[in-house]
């Protein structure tokens, strides 16, 4: 089986680009707080979703709709409507994280395929099989806390398909279980679909240095004139004891392209690319590179290395938890 390339699309144009660049599957969300990339100017109206699905289907690609924030108490109907509308648009599956929403979808939309979002943080075969049993989940997006050998062990113990992140932004905390952003800004991935939101970012020049602040907290400082990194909370510079540095994670992004053969051997069904907030051009380049890589792998050729380096943040990349020493 060829590993499926699952690509992000923040806009209808990005969806078409990804499909034309050879993506097997596209994932996207509605333009509201029901999905974990609820950024201004991003995502799909109901009409755009139906058009996007039709376009993808006409080109032999699938569309997954992410409805992966945790519904707000008293406002669940917004999330229920998103599931119903995804089905009406012809989506091939919905990506869900919330127990209540999974139960709702299993009961009211039994014919709509259900994937478990990374936001559910199901990190072992017992938890994954539990979601399979209780809600008929067919695929799980694995949390970014597992090594390749652990992923292989999971696949040996479950019939639920696994999808893993291979490229793009990297959360160092278990997703769906992090409220660092709401601690500093009041807005979080779980509740609002945003992390370290731009609305709470300020850059300040003082004494020849440029500081980046999030929610008023200074978490980056560079010499004036140097490019200031975006103050994503877990990748900020902090102090503890006498140490100062990137105490949680360096400003790196994930590139596990070199691990593709190992991930295939580990029984992984699908490779996921992060970045619904990325430009159409970026999406096209990444998709083409990964499609070429899986095709090469399938044909028994070597996977070309380093072909994505210039697309990564500052060029610095990591294979994250896939290698045990990252921990």
């Amino acid at each position, binding site marked *: 089986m060829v590993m499926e390339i699952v690509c992000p699309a923040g806009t209808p144009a990005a969806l078409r680009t990804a499909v034309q660049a050879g993506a097997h599957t596209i994932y996207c969300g509605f333009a509201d707080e029901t999905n974990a990339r609820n950024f201004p100017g991003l995502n799909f109206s109901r009409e755009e979703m139906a058009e996007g699905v039709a376009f993808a289907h006409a080109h032999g690609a699938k569309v997954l709709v992410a409805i992966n924030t*945790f*519904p*707000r*108490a*008293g*406002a*669940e109907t917004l999330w229920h409507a998103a599931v119903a509308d995804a089905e009406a648009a012809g989506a091939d599956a919905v990506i869900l*994280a*919330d*127990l*209540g929403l999974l*139960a*709702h979808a299993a009961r009211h939309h039994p014919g709509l395929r259900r994937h478990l979002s990374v936001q559910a*943080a199901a*990190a*072992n*075969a*017992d*938890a994954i099989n*539990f*979601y399979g049993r209780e809600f008929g989940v067919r695929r799980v997006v694995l*949390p970014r*806390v*597992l090594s390749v050998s*652990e992923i292989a062990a999971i696949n040996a113990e479950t019939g639920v398909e696994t999808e893993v992140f291979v490229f793009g932004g990297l959360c*160092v*905390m*278990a997703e*769906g*279980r*992090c*409220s*660092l952003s*709401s*601690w*500093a*800004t*009041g807005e*979080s991935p*779980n*509740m609002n679909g945003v992390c370290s939101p731009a609305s709470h970012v300020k850059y300040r020049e003082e004494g020849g240095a440029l500081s980046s602040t999030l*929610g008023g*907290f*200074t*978490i980056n400082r560079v010499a004036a004139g140097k490019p200031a990194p975006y103050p994503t909370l877990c990748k*900020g*510079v*902090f*102090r*503890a*004891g006498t*140490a*100062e540095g990137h*105490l*949680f*994670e360096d400003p790196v992004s994930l590139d596990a392209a070199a691990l593709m053969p190992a991930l295939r051997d580990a029984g992984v069904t699908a490779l996921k690319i992060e970045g619904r907030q990325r430009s159409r051009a970026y999406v096209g380049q990444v998709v083409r590179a990964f499609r070429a890589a899986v095709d090469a792998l399938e044909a028994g050729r070597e996977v070309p290395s380093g072909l994505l380096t210039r697309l990564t943040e500052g060029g610095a990349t990591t294979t994250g*938890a896939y290698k*045990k020493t*990252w*921990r």
Partner: protein
Amino acid sequence: MELTVGPNPFFWSADDWQSFYDRLAEAPVARVVLGELVCSKRLPFYAARLPAAVERLTAAGKTVALTSLALVTLPRERKATAELAEAGAEVEVNDLTALSHLPEGAGFTVGPLVNVYNEGTLAWLAARGATRICLPPELPLASVETLARAAAGHGVAIEVWGHGRAPLAISGRCYHARLHGRAKDNCLFACEDDPDGLEVRTLDDTAFLAMNGVQTLSAATLSAVHQVEALKAAGVASLRLSPQSQGFDEVCRIWHARLAGGMDGEAAAGALEALVPGGRLADGFLTGARGTDWSAGAPA
């Protein structure tokens, strides 16, 4: 409203651990959750002392529950989680892995690290056997009120984070080990010198977070001391006090007085500020614009 003492999130020596629970037997709290929440490598240091602690707390009239780990990945962690379900004690589920091992219909409680954000999730957990749910600290008061109303209809008791450094994140990576240039598998227990976590400051030297191995906590102590009346009115059954290494007996006494009406919010806050690591309280998740905000008793 009752008081529940949550599981100790930190790594203490076995003697300190035992003496904490010995003293807690005398504290004015109704429930105690104990066991290892954060890191499975810590458990062997005090596992042999757990049964006696459970016995002592039970004999003192406390309801006792055992917590699951917050993040279960390794084979030994899965095994420990499965065994927890067979231990016979009430289980507090802090990762759904634990729920997968509990027999259908068996009662259990849900800890603050399970995402219960809405009525649908609450109803599903209640149908599965949940009798008590401690809500995630991130929730605003309006959500707490809605969920407490819904819980009443299911006969589920709602608990809210009352006191303690807030559990903000859990990771596969150990930050204490990273700080010491080590990997998690070879951590040499870098967290043992920080019995309340290690304070993490911003570049302006503002206390911001506290690292605790694979867990990231808030530097400020989350305190619902000014929201007691609002939470009571909402029908919240219990407040959770999360352990700290020093002065916890006094923390329990202050909270008991606060709930019993012998102390107002301002007096209790003042007394607690002097006792908490770092000396700062926050209640912004419940009533502020950001989690780190502190209302100082201003009306919500």
